[in-house]
């Protein structure tokens, strides 16, 4: 990637559309590309070069052994379930915050971003304390035979906490833009709330809901700080992929760490591409809705 960026610079410098208008094009673009290459592209390419030095067989051994496969399965499952929970509750939360006026609404709205603002290590120890067998919530779950902390459920809870803002913040502007006339028309034509939701609202909201889900899922795949305290970190059982990378690094197994990281990074890039496509689709769809 850095190799592609470097020779671009001289070509780009000559291509200002308004040559005499504003100063500083060369300086600002030059600095941007230099800093981008140094901080982002060079380190990331180190990862792919390292992966390139592994033989195919070594890469295969490092990425498909049973312990690694168990960690992928756990990571993808918990991130998926957490994102699904967030899609359901995030939709309810976003709807209530946009459409209804109730005491505490503004506070609730501001709090949505707490998972962004709170350091993940703090979320991790707080959730572990809440859901361990003596915790405020855990003590009610244990008699029911539900073990929350140090289990996949605990990981899912942590990822739900982390992912909530992605769904709510993606849905809010879309719900704000909905035209109430359509819902009211549906109701006046005899539709019940469920029909109104399914037939009138859902088709418009769906792309944004899917985008929020995908963003929360992508974040969950890579999450580390909030998970490692509550997960218990047992190999094959509660060991997420990010933790396995750290374990490999602590064993000075750079090759093993790199191989797992490349797989996770490619999954994450693929998701981001999908999300970009979704957002285009969403924007086009909303544009049509407005025109109709």
């Amino acid at each position, binding site marked *: 990637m850095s190799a592609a960026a470097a020779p*671009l610079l001289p070509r*780009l410098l000559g291509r*200002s559309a*308004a040559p005499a*208008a*504003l100063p500083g*094009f060369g300086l600002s*673009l030059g*600095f941007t590309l230099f*800093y*981008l290459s140094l901080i*982002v592209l060079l*380190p990331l390419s*180190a*990862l792919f070069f390292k992966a390139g030095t592994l033989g195919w067989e070594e890469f295969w051994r490092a990425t498909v052994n049973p312990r690694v496969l168990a960690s992928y399965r756990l990571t993808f499952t918990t991130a998926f379930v957490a994102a699904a929970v967030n899609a359901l*509750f995030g939709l*309810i*939360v976003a*709807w209530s915050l946009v459409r*209804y006026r*109730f005491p505490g609404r503004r506070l609730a*709205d*501001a*709090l*949505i971003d707490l*998972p962004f*603002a*709170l*350091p*993940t290590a*703090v979320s991790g*120890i*707080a*959730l572990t*304390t809440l859901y361990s067998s003596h915790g405020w*919530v855990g003590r009610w779950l244990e008699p029911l035979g539900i073990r929350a902390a140090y289990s996949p459920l605990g990981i899912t809870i942590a990822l*739900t906490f982390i992912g*909530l803002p992605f769904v709510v913040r993606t849905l809010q*502007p879309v719900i*704000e*833009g909905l035209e109430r*006339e359509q819902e*009211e*028309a549906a109701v*006046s034509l005899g539709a019940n*709330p469920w029909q109104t939701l399914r037939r009138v609202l859902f088709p418009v909201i769906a792309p944004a809901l899917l985008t929020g889900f995908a963003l929360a899922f992508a974040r969950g795949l*890579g999450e*580390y700080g909030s998970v490692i305290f509550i997960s218990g970190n047992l190999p094959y059982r509660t060991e997420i992929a*990010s933790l396995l*990378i750290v374990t490999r*690094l602590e064993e000075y197994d750079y090759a093993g760490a790199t191989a797992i*990281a490349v797989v*996770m*990074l490619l999954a*994450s*890039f693929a998701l*981001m591409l999908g999300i970009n496509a979704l957002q285009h689709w969403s924007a086009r769809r*909303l*544009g049509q809705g*407005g025109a109709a």
Partner: protein
Amino acid sequence: MSIAVSHHPGLARARFRPVRATLIAVTLAFLALLLVLPLAVVLVEALRMGLATCLHAITEPAALAAIRLTLLTAGVALLANGLFGLAAAWAIARFEFRGKSLLLSLIDLPFAVSPVISGLVFILLFGLHGWLGQWLAAHEIRIIFAVPGILLATVFVTFPFVARELIPLMQEQGSEQEQAALVLGAGPWQTFWRVTLPNIKWGLLYGLILCNARAMGEFGAVSVVSGHIRGRTNTLPLHVEVLYNEYNFAAAFSVASLLILLALVTLVLKTALEWKVARGIAPRPRGGHS
């Protein structure tokens, strides 16, 4: 459609009243369980052994060292990524050039890289068995398991924050005012300080606040490169982890409540800025296409 509706606005409302009450109740219960309880438990656990223990935990030398390192790290990330954000926004919002959308995607790249991998890439570059490891060791330069590694990893994970705020803002504002200033004889830097900066100051501040919260709170990336040397390479979140793993819960939660304070201040400032900006552009509807 709108004709039919205007006859029955009350009908819809009456029909949806039970739905409304249920949804509000679910919202408040979910947010209380998911967001408020974790905040509360940290504060309660911090004060369990009394205020004196709590204060001691955040004023003992290792904690103070962690606070200093966290402030240094955040300061470097703000300065570096703030300058980068200004430069990138100037180049992208004020000029047309080929490869612009590629550049925009590359700027967002660090957001797609998970925290642990963000740390790993610097180990592969600068670690003892990394690309430059032997050379660095021969010259006695320490980056991994030392402060420079922490700074680099933090700058990496907070890289896009300011640029992402400034680019759309400056694109929306256009360059008429700057061109007018230049035509009237202002120099380039004068134009930047007197025209551009005042126009984008709230957006810049917003990006810096987000950047700061992430820089002070980053855990995964920093954890990988830090080495957890007490009093030397522990930032506040790492200090919390060390204390917690030593079963020193009162101290861990006391230091954690400092970070909660950071999060709450961040949310207050962020919300205040959002309200300010929303009022500033009040004549335009936020929904966009209505």
